């Protein structure tokens, strides 16, 4: 052990005067930070992930957690993180795994975009007293309509509409697989989307029987591993999504550690118990855009052209032309996942370094689709780092039809973004398959929390739109005139096609 240990990330303390010795911290910490010896609760700080489960459950507020109790010699280049990664790799010789989304301290474009409101020349609209329309349809739309006159002189629609998903609010829950997260998390979210009139993705882990009652609110995913995919699965979904890539790890496939593959997961995914589920980097039947077109058509044929088919891609440098290529296929929506998108497990180097921000991806995709006259051919769903109703409103103003949220939904279930999702130890019962941990989520209560989040954002979006004098969501979509950039450079403003604040 010439390397020795690295300093602990967190220091945990118990205020012994406050502590009533109830032992809830010991019961709740699945990382085994606490243990009882005699009449004393001992602490092993090194194991702490700052998931804050113990803090949340301590009835006396007796616990304190301090980040980075030991300083390294500060250095602008050789940061603590860089040094620790090297030490870890010197020890293991392996790829460093990580969870959640990009953890680098890069500027967030959303925070440098400002929304508009009306004053004098146009009245703001009060959503409490006037209609406010957030209804969103996801799917192909004709670029123009044709009518015919009937013999009786009535006007009739000649154009046939493609199947679209009807959303009561432009917030959907993105694809997090059963396996990566627990069944109770899935159930909570499925109940919530049903209640709020929106949809959720199943992820690539198949569809557990317990979710069948919610199937008309579920978008089933076909990823490169094809886990859980059969005709029954396809027919149950309200829509089908082909996952090409993911913002947290563009260019590589999904990764579910074997620890999480228990009996239920193994049955649902149709894979052996305890085996790592590693999806291939590409789909082995998609080596070019025309292959993707074939897969889309095959899925549509299999489901008799009744269901919209989405294609999800990671926001990479060339995202706009790729999206335009997808728009030319029979796909109904393209999902763009930005580089802040979360994951249950990803190589850290991918999570933190590959891909581009969702804000610029939305802007360039919308622009390219319009330039090529195919914007109506396809809906644009944005995901990857959408944290609030403000991010949602800005995404739509940049040109998205709707968003997927992931991490935000998990936080509403209790997640504290500790980033240890891949360890199957999630003390909040989310990213784990251990029954005693998973049962910490009551799906009925979880559903209320997730639905509350969606409702809260929906109310805030209504207010933001009303203040901007807009009473239907389609007038916010692509309305970059109502955005201003603050402290963004000229090149960025040009890509976003947004004026600087004051202009």
């Amino acid at each position, binding site marked *: 052990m010439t390397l020795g240990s690295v300093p602990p990330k967190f220091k945990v303390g118990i205020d012994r005067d406050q502590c009533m010795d109830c032992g809830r911290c010991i019961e709740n910490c699945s990382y085994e930070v606490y243990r009882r010896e005699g009449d004393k609760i001992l602490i092993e700080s090194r194991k702490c992930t700052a998931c804050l489960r113990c803090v949340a459950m301590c009835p006396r507020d007796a616990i304190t957690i301090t980040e980075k109790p030991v300083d390294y010699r500060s250095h602008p280049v050789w940061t603590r993180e860089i040094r620790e990664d090297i030490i870890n790799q010197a020890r293991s010789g392996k790829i460093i795994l990580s969870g959640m989304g990009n953890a680098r301290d890069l500027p967030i474009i959303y925070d440098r975009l400002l929304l508009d409101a009306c004053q004098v020349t146009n009245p703001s609209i009060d959503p409490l007293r006037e209609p406010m329309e957030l209804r969103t349809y996801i799917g192909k739309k004709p670029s123009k309509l044709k009518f015919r006159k009937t013999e009786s002189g009535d006007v009739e*629609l000649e*154009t046939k509409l493609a199947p679209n998903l009807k959303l009561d609010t432009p917030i959907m829950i993105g694809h997090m697989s059963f396996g990566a997260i627990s069944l109770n998390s899935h159930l909570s979210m499925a109940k919530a989307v049903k209640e709020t009139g929106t949809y959720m993705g199943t992820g690539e882990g198949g569809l557990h029987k317990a979710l069948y009652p919610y199937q008309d609110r579920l978008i089933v995913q076909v990823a490169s591993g094809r886990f859980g995919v059969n005709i029954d699965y396809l027919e149950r979904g309200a829509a089908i999504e082909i996952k090409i890539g993911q913002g947290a790890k563009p260019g590589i496939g999904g990764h579910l550690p074997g620890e999480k593959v228990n009996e239920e997961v193994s049955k649902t995914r149709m894979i052996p118990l305890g085996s790592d589920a590693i999806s291939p980097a590409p789909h082995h039947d998609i080596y070019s855009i025309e292959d993707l077109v074939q897969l889309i058509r095959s899925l549509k044929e299999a489901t008799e052209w009744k269901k919209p088919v989405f294609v999800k891609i990671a926001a990479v440098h060339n995202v706009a032309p790729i999206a335009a290529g997808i728009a030319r296929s029979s796909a109904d929506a393209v999902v763009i996942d930005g580089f802040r998108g979360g994951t249950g497990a990803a190589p850290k180097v991918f999570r933190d370094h590959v891909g581009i921000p969702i804000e610029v991806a939305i802007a360039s995709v919308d622009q390219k689709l319009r330039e090529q006259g195919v*914007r109506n051919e396809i809906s644009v769903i944005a995901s990857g780092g959408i944290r609030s109703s403000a991010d949602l409103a800005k995404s739509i103003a940049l040109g998205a039809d709707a968003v997927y949220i992931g991490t935000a939904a998990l936080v509403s279930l209790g997640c504290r973004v500790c980033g240890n999702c891949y360890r199957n130890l999630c003390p909040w019962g989310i990213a784990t398959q251990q029954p005693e941990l998973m049962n910490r989520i009551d799906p009925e209560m979880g559903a209320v929390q997730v639905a509350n989040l969606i409702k809260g954002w929906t109310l805030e979006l209504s207010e933001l739109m009303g203040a901007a004098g807009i009473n239907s969501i*389609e*007038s916010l979509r692509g309305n970059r005139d109502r955005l201003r950039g603050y402290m963004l450079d000229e090149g960025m403003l040009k890509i976003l096609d947004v004026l600087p604040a004051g202009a």
Partner: protein
Amino acid sequence: MCGIIGFIDRTKSRMDGSSIKAALSLMNERGSGDGAGYAAYGIYPEYADYYALHVFFDNLAEPKKKVDELLQQWGEIVHQEEIPTIPQPGIRKVHIPWRYFFKPSEDLMVGRMASEKDVITYIVMQVNANVNGATIFSSGKNMGVFKASGWPEDVANFYGIENYKGYIWLAHNRYPTNSPGWWGGAHPFNLLNWSVVHNGEITSYGTNQRYVEGYGYKCTLFTDTEVVAYLFDLLGRQHELSHEMVVRALAPPFWDDIDRMPAKESELNKAIRLTYGSALMNGPFAIVVGTEDGIVGFTDRIKLRPLVVGENGSKLYISSEEAAIRGLDPEVKNVYTPRAGEPIIGRFIE
């Protein structure tokens, strides 16, 4: 604010501009003396087959040379002249208003420019986006727009508006917030035979602009009204929607109402909203559009701007204020206020 008037005589009996001037001046409280304008249809019967291009030139040297060259390249100018004006104390002549009577050459109509109208649209976009010192502000047949910065009477007297006789008149009294003082920013806005007068502010402008620019239109006039003319041209001409359907797309019923409609009607309205969501105009507005075959008036979906209608025989009046209608025609009958989003359509009787 802003005050607007739309008039049509459905039998194409022509009326001179004097009473329009008087009626518009009745709404001076709605303006600020920074802009007024008139559009009249039926005023150039001797050139009815030619496009009347009204241009503001900053000078008659370089800008005019460029416009002349462009027009000669695309067709034939049968007549051109300075639009006659009479100096007014209240108007500073910052542009030279000019008119061409022009016919595009058929030899050049191929591909994306397969019709005369495509060529005219192209020329308008080219000049307004790329020729400094020249703005084409009117480009229809047998019609023309007359506008400037100033009060309605002054602008009318400047152009001698009572000397023109038309069967459609649009008029606008401006209280500008977007581009005061610029003649191009005064209403009516025009493209081909579409002319628009507008009271309000379009909060969906960015969406509408992105939408029409995807079809080759260029918004160059620094004000939101311009986009309405292009939306009408795109939906009404290129997509061949009826005026009723265009209004349905720009100010559609609410989803709650659509849900309650009979199945077929509901499906039709849903299709309009899905297809033309980016054309939906939001924010407060009252608009009158002049077209080849009549006028269309409508307001936003929750009627945040006033609009009044009156009829008398073959004559239909639409205005911001009843006073203006009664000023135009003291004998007017059937004066009423239309519902939000309801199209008011006046068509010629065949």
